[in-house]
């Protein structure tokens, strides 16, 4: 059983990270009341975390390859524990926002190094099993986060959602010390600072542009300015990578059709998953469920993800990734189509169940299959880069999905309300973006959860 201890250490850290990502969504109204925070401050409690994750995920994977994945994982756990304590004792919104930024730094490094640690620790059939279990834990964490957050906030205080991280971080650090040995890239490679800076600008401005597009519109000056900055950053990033002796992203991977197809599958799967943000919003705003009940209504999806990930992990070694990833995307597509055909303005929450189960199965098959395919496409000493690239594309898919589907969701709500209420436009605004809880759902779920 000792061989599975590294998996326990990684799953514990990942579970905490993903729960913490979604838990804040539910606690947001309490935080607003407790700290007397404005709506824009509450938005920044979400945005800062999302932006830091977007800016640093790829870099963190590459730095992990260079400095040692075990060392970076331990450091990220320490940063996450410290920043969680700071969040818990925050006397005002400013400190909470700064602490959430620090949490994002720890979270980015933790997420990519945990995946890379699994990729370098296990091989063959064991790697498939490890990826399956890890993916199922992430799927469950994403689903139980809101329920867990609601229970903690209601029974204790919003501060409790941050306090619980500290003992979990400490236990994970001890386990990591015991069961991992260090692994890293060649000593000749050095940190690619120009790449880190230009990628942070590109990814950060692109993600913030997508957030603003969802709120201000795609043609607002700020949105277009952010997209222009992202484009400039991307050009500078490519130039920096071509000149650096040990670039943080191996650009030759971008000429590999197979690797690009794996990344496209990551974007499409994350996009499909982002539609759940609006399912949650529909459950709360239209069906009238509380955030906790909406979280409970989404639990069947988590159960399907858990089962599918565990089963897929066991047979990954024998089946081609072409088959598993294609099957996963077909399931996600069919699940979304079922929801599209079944759900309408008068549906009850049970109408979403069949679609949720099929989407959950698709996500469950796809996550371990994609992770395994990425690790098989890059040399083991660049496992951090591979997991960083995958996490970055997944985040891009979710941010893009939330921004684009947000427009469609608002349009559908408005059409549905037209003629039924006096002012359909303002009613639509209330249902889609007018409340902190709603904003929370929209933004917080845009981080790379599943």
């Amino acid at each position: 059983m000792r061989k599975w201890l590294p998996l326990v250490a990684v799953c514990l850290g990942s579970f905490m990270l993903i729960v913490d990502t979604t838990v804040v969504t539910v606690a947001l109204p309490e935080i607003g009341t407790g700290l007397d925070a404005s709506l824009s401050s509450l938005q920044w409690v979400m945005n800062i975390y999302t932006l830091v994750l977007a800016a640093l995920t790829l870099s963190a994977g590459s730095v992990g390859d260079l400095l040692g994945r075990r060392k970076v994982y331990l450091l990220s756990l320490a940063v996450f524990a410290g920043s969680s304590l700071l969040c818990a004792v925050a006397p005002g919104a400013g400190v909470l926002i700064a602490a959430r930024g620090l949490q994002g730094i720890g979270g980015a490094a933790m997420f990519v190094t945990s995946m890379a640690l699994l990729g370098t620790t296990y091989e063959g059939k064991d790697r498939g099993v490890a990826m399956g279990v890890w993916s199922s834990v992430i799927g469950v964490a994403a689903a139980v986060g809101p329920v867990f957050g609601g229970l903690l906030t209601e029974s204790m205080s919003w501060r409790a959602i941050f306090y619980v991280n500290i003992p979990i971080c400490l236990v994970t650090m001890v386990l990591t010390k015991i069961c991992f040995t260090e692994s890293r890239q060649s000593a000749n490679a050095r940190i690619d600072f120009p790449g880190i800076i230009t990628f942070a600008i590109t990814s950060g401005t692109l993600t913030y542009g997508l957030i603003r597009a969802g709120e201000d519109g795609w043609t607002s000056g700020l949105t277009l300015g952010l997209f222009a900055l992202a484009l400039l950053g991307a050009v500078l990033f490519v130039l920096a990578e071509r000149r650096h002796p040990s670039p943080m992203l191996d650009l030759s991977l971008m000429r590999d059709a197979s690797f690009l197809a794996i990344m496209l599958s990551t974007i499409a799967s994350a996009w499909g998953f982002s539609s759940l943000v609006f399912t949650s919003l529909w459950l709360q705003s239209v069906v009238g469920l509380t955030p906790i009940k909406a979280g409970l209504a989404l639990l069947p999806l988590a159960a399907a993800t858990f089962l599918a990930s565990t089963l897929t992990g066991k047979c990954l070694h024998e089946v081609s990734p072409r088959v598993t990833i294609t099957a996963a995307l077909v399931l996600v597509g069919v699940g979304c189509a079922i929801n599209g055909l079944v759900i309408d303005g008068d549906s009850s929450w049970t109408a979403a169940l069949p679609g949720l189960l099929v989407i959950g199965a698709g996500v469950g098959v796809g996550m371990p299959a994609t992770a395994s395919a990425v690790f098989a496409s890059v040399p083991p000493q660049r496992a951090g880069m591979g997991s960083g690239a995958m996490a970055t594309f997944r985040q891009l898919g979710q941010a893009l999905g939330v921004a684009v589907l947000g427009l469609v969701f608002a349009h559908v709500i408005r059409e549905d309300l037209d003629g039924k209420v006096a002012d359909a436009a303002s009613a639509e605004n209330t249902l889609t973006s007018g409340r902190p809880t709603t904003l929370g759902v929209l933004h917080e779920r845009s981080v790379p959860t599943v």
Partner: protein
Amino acid sequence: MYLASAGLALVAATATAAFIRKRPQAAPEAPAAKAPTEAR
């Protein structure tokens, strides 16, 4: 909204079926747990 997501997923499924190698490029042997991989 759901139908747009379904369309994208099915397009991506077609791309993965066409482009992902049957077996990804063979990578060098990965180290097992507790087996140091220090390259230094």
